[in-house]
């Protein structure tokens, strides 16, 4: 029950998209560069695009297979399109009711007060919630989200991402989330599949992809920092995380309890003394290693890896085992709930 099984080949103009995946009651992130075939996979599951071979099964029912190609309206997917594809001529209420009984969903998603508004009057975050409500009104067996964060402005992203993560967990549907951003995926998904030119190059948890990337592309994409700690909400609305090694950092993501903190190495800068700047996080620690990567240097400071230019490293005269300050903004961190 509640399992989506995929084994597909979908031809596109430049290459074949090949995906084999089993999605239980969990959220799988499909991440990769644009043009990798991510949306093609969603379209094939929804029945908007016909694979050249393979099968799609949902809870034992065949949606696509030998001599079977169900029409989109005869499948049961909740598809949240990129840019949301809300019907501009209908109110929020009618948009949601188009797919089925939307009662209760408007309240559940906190958009009941917008029932009579038209999509053009809504903010990006509100539109996303309407699109989710509309997709869920169909009582789908599978949920597909295409770049759900892309149409949002940066200052609503963090909040919307936290809300979406909670909702997906509550729903417990087989869900595939497409994004091009690894940190978004890490925050939303239980497992991540990395798609490059139509091929799945690695499937695993964010932690596995970061710590044991199987190829250079995954290393580059995930190539981030993942440290663990315990989170609690501060009065000012930021989340404070006490890391396992005792360091304390703050994040704009909202989470509670055991978490993973993800941060890109290029978001971290290094100084000799604590700078007076707007960044919330200053970690004083020893340089464990300095590894050259082309014109950059990967500098390991305490639990974090920073990536700075070779020029900066030279100007600062950084040496292994000296103590420096690693600085990054609270907005550059992503929290993944681990418990």
């Amino acid at each position: 029950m509640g399992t989506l099984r995929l084994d597909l080949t979908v031809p596109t103009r430049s290459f074949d998209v090949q995906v084999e995946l089993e999605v239980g009651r969990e959220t799988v992130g499909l991440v990769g560069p644009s043009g990798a075939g991510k949306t093609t996979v969603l379209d094939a599951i929804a029945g908007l695009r016909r694979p050249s071979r393979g099968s799609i099964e949902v809870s034992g029912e065949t949606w696509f297979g030998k001599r079977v190609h169900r029409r989109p309206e005869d499948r049961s997917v909740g598809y949240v399109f990129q840019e949301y594809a809300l019907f501009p001529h209908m109110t929020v209420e009618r948009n949601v009711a188009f797919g089925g009984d939307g009662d209760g969903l408007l309240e559940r998603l906190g958009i009941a007060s917008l029932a009579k508004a038209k999509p053009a009057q809504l903010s990006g975050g509100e539109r996303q919630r309407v699109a989710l409500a509309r997709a869920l009104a169909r009582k789908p067996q599978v949920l597909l989200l295409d770049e759900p964060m892309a149409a949002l402005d940066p200052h609503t992203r963090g909040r919307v991402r936290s809300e979406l993560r909670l909702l997906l967990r509550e729903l417990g549907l087989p869900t595939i989330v497409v994004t091009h951003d690894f940190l978004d995926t890490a925050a939303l998904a239980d497992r991540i599949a990395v798609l490059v030119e139509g091929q799945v190059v690695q499937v695993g948890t964010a932690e596995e992809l970061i710590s044991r990337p199987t190829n250079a592309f995954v290393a580059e994409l995930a190539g981030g920092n993942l440290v663990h700690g315990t989170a609690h909400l501060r009065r000012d609305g930021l989340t404070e995380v006490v890391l396992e090694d005792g360091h304390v950092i703050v994040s704009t993501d909202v989470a509670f309890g055991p978490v993973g903190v993800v941060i890109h190495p290029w978001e971290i800068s290094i100084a000799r003394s604590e700078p007076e700047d707007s960044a919330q996080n200053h970690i004083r620690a020893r340089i464990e290693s300095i590894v050259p990567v082309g014109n950059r240097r990967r500098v390991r400071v305490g639990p974090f890896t920073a990536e700075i230019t070779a020029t900066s490293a030279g100007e600062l005269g950084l040496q292994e085992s000296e103590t420096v300050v690693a600085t990054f903004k609270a907005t550059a961190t992503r929290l993944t709930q681990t418990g």
Partner: protein
Amino acid sequence: MFVAASAAIAFTFLLLPLAAIFLRVPVLDLIEQLGNDVARDALLVSLKTSAIAHAAVLLVGTPTAYLLARRRFRGRSLVVTLTEIPLVLPPAVAGIGLLAAFGRFGLLGDELNALGIQIGFTQLAVILAVAFVESPFYLRGAIAAFEAVDDNLIFAARTLGAGPWRVFLRVAVPLAAGGLGAASALALARGLGEFGATIIFAGSLQGVTQTLPLAIYAELDTDFDVALAISALFVVVGAAILIGLKAFTWARFDSTSPSRLAPSTSR
């Protein structure tokens, strides 16, 4: 200088004949002339035949345009081009073609005779002529209107469980409504003014097949003021359709232009 003079010449040339229609006889007299038997009969014939022809064009043309706009199939552009041929034909040729197809001695003449159906020189002939001449105008505009509908909205409707008819009626038609309305108005105007095909295929029998344009031609020798009055009516109706269309387009672009639908920052 030259540009300004050209503009003045063009403007005068286009508007002078229209103004002349109203300037020759006092406007009140024109209105009175519309009460004349010939004018009244022609108005009734025109309204009836145009309404039926237009309803048929909308009913058949709208789903056809939707199909041609949304389906990708081999030979699609050939089919679209074929439907546009009547646009570039002289209406007289359309009249001859209709006669050759549906006339008593035409292609389907024997079959229609056997069924006891006479089309030539009846009101049905007027309706066929008007529909034939105006339908490409509607199809062209309607295809463009449906092509402009965002694919993802159609796809979204289907994933939400809507079958083809529901997608057509509740999503495609309402979203294409502006373009469909404009195409419909232009086609209607073209149909009301139909002359060549009608006079060849349906003749000019007062009270039966004599439409307003045919009445103008008939009254040219008999009572020029009636011809003027009907012409004035056309100018007014035509201007009303044009102004209505422009006002409608402006209103749409003001309230729901695509840029307004693009993601905006928070309210």
